[in-house]
């Protein structure tokens, strides 16, 4: 059996986080009633004049800088011509020969190996509307709210060699757009979406095989599974002695298969030409310099710094930097207690658990990072046990209360008074003679049984270190 190598390139569409559309002042708000954010320009009426959105240009340029692209001081909008009911103009306004950004790259690390993925270009374009298909009547319904919303398309070189690399690249891009604030990154609502070009070739062969373009990859997991499926499918085709056909295939997440989209193909011939309604976009050198100067610290750099400065593991640093707000939270909490590893553990345990349960992000909760820092500090100081900290975490998150005042008010402060604990220890020993016998006979694991008994008597407030010490002395 021949050994194949996969060749993968990604085309990522990110919706720019602007208030208004790319060429008109209609709102980009998601979820508005159908066709309520539509005007003459974005519904393709004749005789209208598109005027580009300054912030969209700025965001596209900032993204280019973040992925090491050259930002072209002059770029040109072009018409991409095709017919579809969700495209009222009969063409999409995109960029073809002269996109706003070119020649970038992004480094990714998979299984400890760092690889550089080339970014061919980033161009601006307007989005199409949305079609809704009715099962009953023989019609489709068109909503143009999304028509004209600004997108950037980020086109990679075919530099990825596995589904894991493709996902790592996509996650890195995702983290960057969110850090920059140029895109909200919401994959479910389609603000960040991905098509993948996948081909395979015998290992060692230079020329590329015939590629399939995969669509409908709306989560990281689906990207991984769709590419894995497609690589296996193409291997089967080749091993059966057949040829891979160049085509667009739709990923079906329920069945975990890719299916050929026949019909829509008909030799793509978009007949691009410069849009005569639009002048070339010129960006002033001062603007470029200003945007470059205030690029934020990007996820990769921040991850490296958190590892270096706070001694976090790579995995911890990756989780904490995946979201800029989470990383900010971590640093602010650590500043309060000076215990980065404890903060990291509490965030990845209790905090992420509570956030997931509520399906909210860290910037939407009442708890301030200073509170989490204080919580770590009072656990470390022995004021409360880790268990109590975990138990009250949800309440602290909801209320935004400061932990030290909260535990004092609730009477949750740990009992570190030896005589009080001693009473509980004595009771536990007196009530469980059989276990005492077994312990003395060598079943030392029973110490946790006694610990449980004592915690129950003290409502979880006994200092565990003191309990262990007393138990060992008395059972000894």
């Amino acid at each position: 059996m021949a050994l194949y190598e996969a060749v993968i390139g990604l085309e990522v569409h990110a919706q720019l986080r602007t208030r208004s559309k790319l060429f008109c002042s209609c709102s980009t708000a998601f979820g508005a009633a159908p066709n309520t954010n539509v005007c003459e320009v974005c519904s393709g009426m004749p005789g209208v004049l598109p005027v580009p959105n300054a912030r969209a240009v700025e965001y596209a340029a900032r993204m280019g800088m973040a992925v090491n692209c050259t930002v072209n001081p002059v770029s040109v909008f072009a018409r991409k011509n095709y017919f579809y009911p969700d495209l009222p103009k009969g063409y999409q306004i995109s960029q073809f020969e002269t996109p706003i950004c070119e020649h970038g790259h992004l480094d990714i690390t998979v299984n400890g190996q760092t690889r550089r993925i080339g970014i061919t270009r980033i161009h601006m374009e307007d989005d199409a509307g949305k079609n809704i298909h009715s099962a009953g009547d023989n019609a489709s319904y068109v909503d143009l709210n999304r028509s004209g919303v600004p997108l950037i398309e980020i086109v990679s070189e075919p530099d990825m060699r596995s589904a894991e690399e493709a996902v790592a690249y996509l996650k890195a891009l995702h983290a960057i757009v969110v850090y920059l604030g140029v895109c909200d990154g919401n994959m479910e609502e389609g603000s960040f979406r991905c098509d993948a070009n996948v081909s395979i070739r015998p290992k060692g062969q230079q020329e590329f095989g015939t590629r399939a373009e995969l669509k409908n990859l709306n989560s990281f997991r689906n990207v991984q599974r769709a590419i894995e499926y497609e690589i296996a499918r193409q291997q089967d085709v080749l091993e059966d002695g057949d040829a891979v056909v160049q085509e667009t295939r739709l990923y079906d997440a329920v069945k975990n298969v890719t299916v050929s989209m026949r019909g829509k193909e008909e030799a793509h011939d978009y007949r691009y030409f410069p849009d005569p309604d639009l002048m070339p976009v010129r960006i002033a050198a001062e603007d470029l310099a200003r945007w470059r100067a205030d690029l934020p610290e990007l996820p990769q750099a921040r991850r490296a710094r958190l590892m270096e400065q706070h001694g976090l593991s790579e995995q911890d640093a990756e989780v904490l930097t995946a979201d800029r707000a989470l990383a900010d939270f971590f640093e602010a909490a650590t500043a309060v207690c000076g215990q980065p590893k404890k903060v990291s553990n509490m965030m990845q345990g209790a905090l992420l658990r509570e956030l997931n349960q509520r399906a909210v992000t860290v910037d939407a909760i009442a708890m301030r990072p200073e509170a989490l820092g204080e919580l770590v500090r009072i656990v470390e100081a022995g004021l409360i046990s880790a268990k109590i900290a975990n138990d009250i975490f949800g309440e602290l998150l909801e209320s935004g209360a400061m932990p030290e005042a909260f535990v004092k008010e609730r009477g949750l402060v740990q009992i570190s008074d030896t005589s009080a604990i001693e009473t509980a220890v004595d009771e536990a020993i007196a009530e469980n003679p059989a276990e005492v016998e077994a312990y003395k006979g060598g079943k030392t694991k029973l110490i946790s049984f006694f610990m449980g008994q004592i915690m129950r008597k003290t409502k979880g407030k006994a200092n565990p270190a003191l309990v262990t010490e007393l138990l060992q002395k008395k059972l000894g």
Partner: protein
Amino acid sequence: MTTISTEQVAAIARLARLAPDEAQLETFARQFGDILGYMEMLNGLDTTGVEPLYSPVQHATALRPDEAAPRCTREDVLRNAPEADQEFFIVPRIV
């Protein structure tokens, strides 16, 4: 002299959703060829080192600030549609 075949005209017509008959294909092929032939005169000029000119208008791009403002009511937007209900444009079923 540039020649355009009737097959090329048919392909372009298909992309534009037009269905010319045989006689029209012949006419368009001849006319396309004439236009391209006329334009070919430009290829006689040496344009080495000349920046491509996309438009005779030279001023900088006019950009607008990113401010959202409603312009049209839904009723206005749907008014000219061949078919619509109170909310959507309606088209023949696509898939």
